[in-house]
């Protein structure tokens, strides 16, 4: 008879074998979850010296551990508690932090429960090369598994689990080193290696000490480590808890406490509170706004107490005050650097400067009050205060160390001192940090992370991450720019490069007839195709052709690099490209989305070589009406790569009659008709200040010059056909995949956005702006003319553009059909298809189009709405960041150029006034595409109603001068190095109608 064994475990052991917990679902139900736990004796410990455990494939923990620490001469391993990862991740991630780490499963679970981003960093850390991290499944090893006691809090239970595991590891280590004497608790000189519990929880340490488990606080540990000075700077502020950092927070409370998260959520649900992103005001550091869906206008936050420690980008919860307390935004420029330069970083007053401590907040309170006390001239705005934070979006910020905050007594000493770091971005408050390297960091760009912002501290506290290099050096500026805009700029990893074709540079289109690549591809090698791009373009992703058809119509084709042939879904290269989202163009550097082999060679539609393409071919009537369109994968051989200028010359040269030139002319006539149609439909001709930076040579770029970009007919030619292709593709993929098509839209701006501009135009120029539709807006923009000043129209266009929303990618199934439209282009549907080398959205559109024409089946991920939404969210963000990074890069070079010019003499330029403040003017220098601020030290008469200020004349007894918005002024532009921030900053002084240098 067969012997039957019941494998099910008896229910008497339920307490040990089952882990029960409750979960509250999103719909408010409570469910009980039960997990079975099987304990084993063979969970490997990871010690190389261990003979008791089954040998792991690669023992991570070396024989003696780390021998470099003064307190542990016999060698040691560290076993960090959860709080170490929660608050000191930068320290652990530092390449200088070298001891082998035992990572407990309990700790990993706790970190995941507390903070998902930190959990992701932790898992990445465990895989980092050069770090010895062993993940020990302590909850599954029978000796280290524990059961929660009655009345034990989850936290205490986890602490106990961590202590138990540490104790077990030490006992286990002793087995591996039997030659050494058994350890006596309390005895310091231990000869064999130890596992040391690293924790900042004093209570946990106390119990551990009582139980004879070796333990140490992070600060103590780092002080004894090899690179103590550098490591100590990486300690987050929370780490100084032992050093009495807390006392200060309790003494003086500047900010209200946040409400607990559940209360916030309840308040939002009840409609009493509102959630939104916090936007700081770049002109006034004491003001911020939070756009919330429930109100038409963003909620205004006035004063530090109401902003309540919110930092740019945080998701905050605001409470809106009673309507009678609503205010209008301030009308003065309040500059933090100027106002607060006397603040002492050592705020707590270590050297008995207690009176200073009192005075500073008082004086500042006065300033704040003054800034707020102004009349409310314009309409009021909902006003409120921050009552809680849903999500902090803190990251590492590029900063300068404020030299004035350095203690003067020891300018060069390596003692620990508290200094201010001023972020490069004006939207951020300065950050207080403690460092020993302050003198060395002066004049450098440094990366600083915010750790916390206590209620008693006027500024957030942070710690130093690393130095980027001397300020204004090109490398440091470039890297800081990339960091500031979160552009991923690391070189491509091995896994990504592994996805490239094995032939590398030598890859060619195989001969026809070999199947494979040629499957369902049209042979368009004989067509006269050419590409037209800006000078110096290496990643040519589009090419064009046109030829007359026998029936009188014209065939026009747009050929786009077939990136989806090389980038397959679900490969490392694909996910890297999706994460990068877009190629970022800086003045002197390009950060590719795809490896250069693809971008500048295999996918680039270079002339005279065969390349794979995805073609859209139209039959158009001579009036540029579409007869039909077809899409096909193809093989092309471009006949020429022109620059815009070159193509223009070719087109205009009547002697040339070769087919290429004919094609360009044909395309040009069609493009003009297409454009006329688009304009008739109400497309906007928008303007943004675009300037071009001249680099002397690609190597040394120091002396540079700036000029405005020139627009030729051929620019418009390419643009029109790209628009046509994008629109045709958008229609097709939306038809085939109505739920998941990747499209691009530009929502019409709410008319309230234009109120201010309309008011200024009406009052200053007597012009009206009709914003009822894009067509009406285009028409009324055309009428905004000043016969004496051609640049005026451009200026109004720039200002109107700023009132609009930005275009975005979206998934067609996620929004309603009537919001698909592209406002600026006046097209009911639009997508990006034409630049797959540099934009990831285009890659998705390529895949969808390929599936729509039955070339390949659609990858399942592109059938999932949730997946597409997730991807386009990332791409949208990256796209925005890339634009800002590009602009910042241009600004930096404009600054350099001005500096260069300034050395040769004074730089004066004509400028338009675009904003008026009580104590200054915002001006726009169109020639340089530069916006600046003219500040007056003396008060002027400010007429908020008419957007004008009246300045006393520079000559004694002269007439007062009134300057208002849209007036043309002349400014002198200087680049001066701000003493406080080390920021090269553009300073503008009015030259005419009055010289404001005295004011």
């Amino acid at each position, binding site marked *: 008879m067969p012997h039957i064994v019941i494998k099910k475990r008896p229910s008497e052991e339920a307490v040990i074998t089952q882990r029960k*917990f409750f979960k509250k679902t999103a719909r408010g139900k409570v469910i*009980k979850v039960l997990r079975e736990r099987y304990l084993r004796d063979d969970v490997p410990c990871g010690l190389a010296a261990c003979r008791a455990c089954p040998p792991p494939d690669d023992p991570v923990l070396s024989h003696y551990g780390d021998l470099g620490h003064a307190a542990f001469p016999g060698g040691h391993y560290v076993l960090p508690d959860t709080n170490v990862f929660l608050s000191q991740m930068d320290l652990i991630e530092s390449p200088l932090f070298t001891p082998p780490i035992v990572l407990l499963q309990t700790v990993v679970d706790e970190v995941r429960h507390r903070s998902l981003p930190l959990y992701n960093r932790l898992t990445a850390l465990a895989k980092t090369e050069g770090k010895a991290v062993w993940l020990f499944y302590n909850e599954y090893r029978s000796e280290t598994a524990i059961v929660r006691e009655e009345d034990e809090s989850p936290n205490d239970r986890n602490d106990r689990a961590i202590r138990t595991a540490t104790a077990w590891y030490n006992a286990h280590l002793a087995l591996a080193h039997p030659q050494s004497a058994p350890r006596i608790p309390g005895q310091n000189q231990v000869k064999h290696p130890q596992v040391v519990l690293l924790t900042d929880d004093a209570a946990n340490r106390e119990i551990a000490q009582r139980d004879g488990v070796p333990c140490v606080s992070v600060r103590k540990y780092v002080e004894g480590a090899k690179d103590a000075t550098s490591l100590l700077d990486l300690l987050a502020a929370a780490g100084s808890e032992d050093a009495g950092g807390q006392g200060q927070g309790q003494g003086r409370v500047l900010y209200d406490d946040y409400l607990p998260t559940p209360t916030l959520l*309840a308040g939002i649900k009840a409609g009493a509170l509102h959630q939104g992103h916090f936007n700081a005001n770049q002109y006034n550091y004491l003001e911020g706004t939070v756009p919330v869906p429930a109100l038409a206008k963003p909620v205004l936050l006035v004063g530090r107490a109401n902003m309540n420690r919110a930092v740019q980008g945080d998701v905050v919860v605001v409470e809106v*005050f009673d309507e009678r307390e609503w205010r209008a935004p301030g009308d003065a420029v309040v500059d933090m650097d100027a106002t607060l330069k006397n603040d002492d970083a050592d705020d707590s007053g270590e050297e008995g400067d207690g009176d200073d401590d009192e005075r500073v907040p008082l004086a500042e309170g006065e300033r704040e009050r003054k800034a707020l006390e102004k009349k409310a001239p314009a309409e009021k705005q909902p006003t409120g205060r921050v009552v809680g934070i849903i999500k902090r979006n803190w990251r590492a910020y590029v900063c300068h160390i404020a030299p004035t905050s350095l203690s003067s007594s020891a300018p060069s000493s390596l003692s620990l001192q508290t200094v201010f770091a001023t972020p490069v971005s004006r939207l951020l408050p300065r950050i207080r940090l403690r460092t020993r390297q302050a003198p060395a960091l002066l004049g450098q760009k440094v990366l600083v992370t915010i750790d916390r912002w206590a209620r008693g501290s006027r500024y957030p506290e942070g710690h130093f991450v690393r130095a980027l290099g001397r300020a204004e050096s090109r490398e440091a500026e470039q890297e800081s720019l990339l960091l500031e805009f979160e552009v991923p700029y690391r070189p491509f990893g091995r896994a990504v490069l592994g996805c490239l074709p094995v032939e590398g540079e030598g890859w060619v289109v195989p001969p026809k007839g070999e199947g494979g690549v040629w499957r369902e591809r049209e042979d368009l090698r004989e067509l006269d195709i050419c590409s037209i791009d800006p000078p110096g373009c290496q990643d040519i992703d589009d090419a064009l052709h046109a030829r007359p058809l026998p029936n009188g119509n014209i065939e026009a084709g747009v050929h786009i690099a077939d990136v989806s042939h090389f980038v397959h879904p679900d490969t490392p290269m694909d996910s890297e490209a999706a994460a990068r989202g877009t190629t970022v163009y800086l003045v002197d550097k390009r950060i590719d989305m795809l490896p250069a082999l693809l971008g500048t060679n295999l996918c680039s539609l270079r002339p005279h070589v065969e390349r794979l393409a995805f073609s859209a071919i139209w039959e158009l009537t001579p009036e540029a009406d579409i007869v039909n369109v077809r899409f096909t994968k193809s093989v092309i051989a471009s006949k020429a790569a022109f620059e815009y200028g070159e193509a223009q010359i070719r087109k205009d040269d009547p002697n040339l009659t070769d087919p290429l030139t004919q094609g360009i002319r044909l395309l040009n006539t069609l493009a003009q008709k297409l454009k006329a149609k688009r304009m008739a439909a109400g497309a906007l001709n928008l303007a943004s200040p675009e300037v071009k930076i001249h680099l002397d040579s690609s190597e040394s770029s120091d002396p540079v010059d700036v000029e405005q970009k020139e627009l030729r007919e051929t620019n418009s030619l390419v643009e029109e056909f790209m628009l046509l292709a994008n629109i045709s593709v958008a229609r097709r993929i939306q038809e085939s995949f109505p739920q998941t098509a990747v499209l691009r839209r530009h929502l019409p701006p709410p008319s309230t956005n234009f109120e201010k501009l309309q008011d200024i135009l009406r009052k200053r120029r007597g012009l009206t702006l009709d914003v009822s539709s894009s067509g009406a807006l285009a028409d009324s923009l055309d009428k905004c003319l000043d016969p004496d000043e051609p640049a005026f129209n451009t200026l109004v266009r720039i200002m109107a553009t700023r009132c609009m929303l930005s275009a975005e990618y979206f998934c067609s199934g996620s929004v309603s059909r009537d919001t698909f439209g592209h406002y600026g282009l006046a097209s009911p549907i639009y997508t990006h298809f034409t630049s797959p080398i540099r934009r990831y959205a285009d890659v998705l559109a390529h895949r969808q189009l390929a599936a729509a024409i039955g070339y390949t089946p659609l990858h399942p991920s592109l059938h999932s709405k949730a997946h597409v939404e997730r991807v386009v969210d990332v791409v949208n963000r990256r796209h925005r960041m890339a634009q800002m990074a590009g602009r910042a890069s241009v600004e930096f070079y404009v600054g350099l150029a001005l500096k260069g010019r300034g050395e040769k003499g004074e730089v004066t330029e004509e400028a338009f006034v675009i904003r008026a403040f009580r104590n200054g003017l915002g001006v726009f220098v169109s020639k340089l595409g530069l916006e600046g601020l003219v500040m007056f030290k003396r008060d002027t008469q400010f007429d908020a109603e008419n957007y004008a200020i009246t300045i006393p004349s520079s000559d004694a007894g002269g007439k007062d001068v009134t300057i208002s918005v849209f007036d043309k002024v002349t400014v002198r532009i200087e680049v001066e190095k701000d003493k406080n921030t080390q920021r090269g900053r553009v300073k503008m002084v009015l030259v005419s109608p009055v010289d404001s240098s005295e004011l």
Partner: protein
Amino acid sequence: MALLSKAEKSYIQSSLLSDPPLRADGRALTDFRTIALETGVAPLANGSARVSIGRNAPDGGGGTEVVAAVKLEVEAIGEGEGVDGGRISCSVSCSPTAYPHLSSGALDDLQHDMTSVLHSTLGHSSLRPNNLGILPGKKAWLLNLDIVVFADAGNVYDTIFMAARAALWDTKVPRTRSVEYRAKKLDSIDSESKAMDVDGANQDQGKSVLDTRETTKATDFELPDYWDEGEVLGGREAWPVCVTLNLLPSLHFLDASLQEESSVPLRLHTMFSFPPTAAPCLQTFRLIGPGVTNSTHIQSLMKDGEKYARNIWSALESKLKDEDIRRNQKAREKFICR
């Protein structure tokens, strides 16, 4: 309910009426068969118990067997049947193998009958636990008590009530904390003194001594400790026990087997609860069967019933406490000394 011939019935009746009374298994009239009780049999339930009466020790077969389980569910008040402060809903279902001779229609009737007895007794407002509320006026726990009869070898009502009592005793209600948004308005416009907090955490809100009115709008709740099973049901000592008196003219006996049940003309179910501070309370009684009796007889039977119920109650109480210790403390000790 076993199918017995008249001869068999009269044989059983006459043996019971003989002096001394004789029962087939040799028990005295007020003796129970062996009762086996185990709590925590359904790990995913909030409380559960299995009770069997008269199971054969050697092979574990035979006897009346009942499993009871309690499941708590969050219920919105105002939609459907939700009641402020929570409510109890009981149901009894019978395995068809317990009553193989019944048609499915008859089985439904039986289940329905048992359900209504159980529900009307336990669902009575005097017994409602005080901790089933979550958010006053918004949300409350719905306590579902589900009982399955796996086998019936007589005296199923007593067993059902015992199982129900054990499962309810075992029930733990997850601790919740109501989250509310409290806007305190002052007459002055001072924005500083508007404050919101979670209830129970506002000792340090000394600022707003002046508040004149307070609006409480708890809209949601949270689970402060998701590992914790929670607290026991309020007033769990009061859950009633049932004792069935099988009546033959001139005598009564307890814990009848199936054959004995078929042989008696009348049965009296009495449900008593014994609150720790108040006098014993007769929750329900029910007289069933073709026979007749008079009120004086009933009154004396009630007195006896209370006495028997008290015995069952105290036996159950001590066993339930044992079970608690077995499942928690002893299991932990065993784990530590492994």
